[in-house]
Each structure stands twice: as C-alpha cells, then as structure tokens.
C-alpha cells in the first residue's frame, strides 16, 4: 500500500476511523429519537463557535462546544414557548447561527479559504492534536454510554415510563444533546459543519434498515461509519475530489443500497405511516 506511506494520509485514515466510530455510536440515539433536524441545526449553529474560536485563538473543540451549549439552551427555550413549534424554533436558531458565523468570518481576513475548510472539512490537514482530541471524545462518549446507555434507550422508547420510575429525564435528554454536540464538533475537521450530520445520521439509519436490536444496530453503525470514512478518503485520493464530500457520498450510497436491498423494507412498507397521510 503505497498510499499509507504518506504521513498525512495515515493521519487522515486514523481520524476518519475515530470519527466514524464516534458518529456511529451517537447516531443510533439520534435516529431512535428523531433528532436529525436538531443535529442539523447543531452543526450549523456550531459554525459561529468554530469561527469565534479560530479568531480568538482558543481551542476549536472548546470554543464550539461552549457555543453548542448556548444553542441547546436556545432551542429548548424557544420551543417551550407556547406558539412556536420546535421545528420553527430550530429553523430560526439554525439560520441565526449560520449567518452569525458567515458575518464573523467575512469581517475577518482570509474569508474564502478558511470558510470552505470549516464548511466541508479538510481531513488531509488533520493534526496529531486533532487525533488525540477525537480519541479523548470517543473515550468520554463510550464511558457515558456505558454508564447511562440503558437509561437513554429507555427514554427514547418510553419517556413517560422513565419519568415515572423517578429517573431525571430532562437531565438525561440534555446529556444526550451534549453527546451529539461533542460528536458534531469532533467531526468538523474531517467533514466540516454542513456535512457532519451525514456521518451521524446515515450509518445509523442504514443500520436501522438491517437490525431490530440496539446492540447489533450500534455495531453495524460503527462499522459503516468507519468504512465510509476509509473508502471516502481512498476515493478522494484516486479521483482528486473533496475528501469530506466523498466520505458523505459513500455513507449515503450505503444507505441507498440498503434501502433497496434490506429484507425489512418490503414488509414494513404495508402500513401507511402517520406522516404520509
């Protein structure tokens, strides 16, 4: 493998393996709880955090993580108001966050080059420190899920039951949102803010097509996330196209193929879902 002789390719492959595993694990919960649009808003609203962190010169992960917490609180507050439903609230926060990021960047010099790196990622310029951070985040997420994973799954399927049994349901919800934010922020160097949602949602949704149990679904999602990352980097090297977009396209191709081939889809199509009425 002459490909692996380059330092930067090796680092890129390691990064996408880590990010793929991380997003696969978190993605299972996002898909089960239908948080895709929320994740989308997080990725967009994290963008000004990334820009601010870069301008001020503090750590990217820290800056955007803090900003993400503000976003989470903003969405929860807006959607708790009587008249606006949560999807409009998420839409407002999403556009506000993105516009703020663009305005901040445009006020700063070097507009276009930095911008595209944040938007669509540049995995080939990943630094060893990024790798260490992603690994730490992965360990943290694994530790959190090892301790409260069961409660989180319980909450996804039967929130009323969780509350009735005396679990702190609101705090658990918030914890999960923070995990999603961590995964999103960690994948920014690899795939950028716009496409991070794909690495979170696509592998988990693909796994859902094949599996009915959480354990196997998580394993398949992690495998698909890692495979999408590696294949995407290889394709982008061969075809000389943007790496982040190639990774996402591979993940989406897995989903499209599974939607056509998975055994469940035909039998599950019979009942008309509520949304389609």
């Amino acid at each position, binding site marked *: 493998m002459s490909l692996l002789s380059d330092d930067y390719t090796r680092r890129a492959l390691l990064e996408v393996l880590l990010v793929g595993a991380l997003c696969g694990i978190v993605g299972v919960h996002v*898909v089960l709880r*239908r*948080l*895709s*649009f929320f*994740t*989308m808003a997080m990725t967009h609203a994290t963008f000004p955090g990334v820009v601010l962190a870069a301008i001020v010169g503090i750590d990217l992960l820290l800056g955007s993580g803090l900003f993400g917490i503000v976003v989470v609180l903003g969405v929860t507050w807006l959607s708790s*108001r009587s*008249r*606006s*439903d949560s*999807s*409009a609230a*998420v*839409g*407002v926060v*999403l*556009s*506000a966050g*993105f*516009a*703020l990021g*663009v*305005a901040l*960047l*445009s*006020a700063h010099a070097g507009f*276009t080059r930095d*911008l*595209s790196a944040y*938007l*669509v990622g540049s995995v080939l310029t990943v630094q060893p420190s990024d790798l260490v951070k992603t690994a730490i985040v992965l360990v943290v997420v694994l530790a959190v899920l090892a301790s409260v994973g069961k409660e989180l799954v319980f909450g996804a399927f039967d929130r009323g039951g969780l509350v009735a049994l005396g679990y702190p349901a609101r705090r658990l919800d918030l914890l999960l949102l923070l995990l999603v934010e961590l995964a999103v922020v960690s994948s920014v160097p690899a795939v950028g803010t*716009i*496409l991070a949602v*794909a690495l979170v*949602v*696509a592998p*988990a*949704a693909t796994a*859902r*097509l094949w599996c009915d149990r959480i354990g196997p679904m998580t394993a398949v999602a992690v495998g698909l996330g890692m495979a999408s990352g590696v294949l995407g980097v290889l394709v982008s090297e061969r075809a*000389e*196209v*943007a790496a*982040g*977009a*190639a990774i*996402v*396209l591979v993940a*989406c191709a897995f989903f499209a193929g599974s*939607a056509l081939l998975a055994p*469940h*889809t035909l039998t599950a*199509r019979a*009942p*008309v*879902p509520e*949304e*389609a*009425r």
Partner: protein
Amino acid sequence: MSLLVEPFASPFMARALAVALLLGVVGGVVSVFVVLRRLAFVSDTLTHTVFPGVVVGFLVAGTNGIVWGALAFAVLSVVLLTVLSTHARITEDASLAILLTGFFSVGVILVSRRPSYTADLTAFLFGRILTVDMRQIVVTAILGAVALLTLAALRKELVFRAFDPAGAAARGYPVVALDLALNLVVALVVVAAVRAVGTVLVIALLVVPGAAARLLSDRLAAIVVLAAAIGALGGWLGLAASYQASIEHGLRLASGATVVLALVALYGVAAAVGTVRSSARRRGRVTP
C-alpha cells in the same frame, strides 16, 4: 433616516435592494405555509439539494444556466422527498438528512474539481447580492410571481390540508398532490434566491418571517401580511447595515448574512412583543 436611504443611491445597491425586497415579500408569504405545515426541515433540505443543480448549471451554461440547473434539481428532489416520506421504516427526518447531505456532497465534489474551488464554493453557497443585474431581477420577479400565484390559487385547499389532513383526504382533496405543489413552491423560492443570497441562507427567508409573524397574530390573513412586511424589512435593514458597516466603519460584513441577522433580530422583537402582549392578556391588565 438617511442611514436607511443613502446607501441605495448607487445603482448596484438599488438593484440589490430590489432583489432583497422581492425575495423578502415572496419568502415571507411562503414562510407562513412552511411554519404552518412544519416544513422547516423540508425547506432546509431543498436549499441544500438545489446546490448541485447550481453547480451543474454553471458548468454547462455559465451564469445563465444556474437557474435552469437549480430548477431541474429542485423538481428532482421534491419528487424524491415526496416518495421518501411514504417509506415506513426510516423516519422522515433521517431520510431528509441523508438526502440533503448526499445531494450537497455531489455539489461539493463537482466544485472541488475546479481550480478556483474555494472562491466558487463561497459564491454558490452565499450568493452575490451586490452583483445582480437587471436580467436576474426579472427572473426573480417571474419565479416569485409564479410561486405567489400558485399559493393564491390553492390557498383554501392548502390551509385545509394544513389544519386537518384527515378531513381534507376524506373530502376527496388530492393531499399528495397538494404537498407536492407546496414543496414545489418552496423550491421555486429557493431557485429564485439562489444567486442573490446563496443556497445556505435561503432557509432564513423561508422560516424566520413566518415564525415571527406567527408570534404576533392568530389570524392567517394578518400573519401573511406581517410575514411579507417582516421579510422585506429584514432585507432592507440588513443591506443598509452591511453597507454602513463596510463603508463607514471599515468592518466588512457579508451582505447576505447581515440580511439574515436582521431577520433574526426582527424575530427577537416579535418574540418580545408577543410575550408582553400575552402576559398582559393573561393578567388582565397592561404591563410595561
């Protein structure tokens, strides 16, 4: 007051203002339906799926091809959306997210093959409202008129379907066709706005005015008028603010993003007004 008028003395700013007002009014009216039907995520998906169309149109026929490419991909993604939403096993939001990022990646990959990668990407994503020409204003006006006329013709059916989908289906209205029509109207706005504000910021035009107007009124007709006014006002204030900051204070603010921030600020004002009014009503007395 001169702060709000003076920037538009130069022809390029006047043209930018014309496009911003047009898009504000059309986007405002459409956003009411987006908010009523909770289509915020669908709209966001459409803004991203149109992106590869913009790129393909540009590669094939230059700047004049952008609208046609965008239109073709808009129709394609609206059809895919409507098909995917009938798929039972995957929830609608997950399939939307995948459709959105998949299409968007195709656009990024196509752009990344070009030598002027980053500059092109920025122009496609954020638009260039300051360089619009007369022809573009006409195209925007035509697309906007088609969108508004469609909404006007179908308004009764669309409102019925929004509030009582089961009732509309039982009365024999073609619900799927109505959904398709509304999605197409949203797509038309995206296509109309794509060259001016770019694909990423259109979502603000399609959600924020309607959400803000909804906070101020309960009557649909009033909400539509308010949303159109908020959309237009946001465009005007945003352009003026971006001009003043860039020319007078040496702070370069991207015009598209400033328009969006102005819209969000108006949403904040609407939220404050709505809160004060509803708490006054609840307590039965006027509070400051």
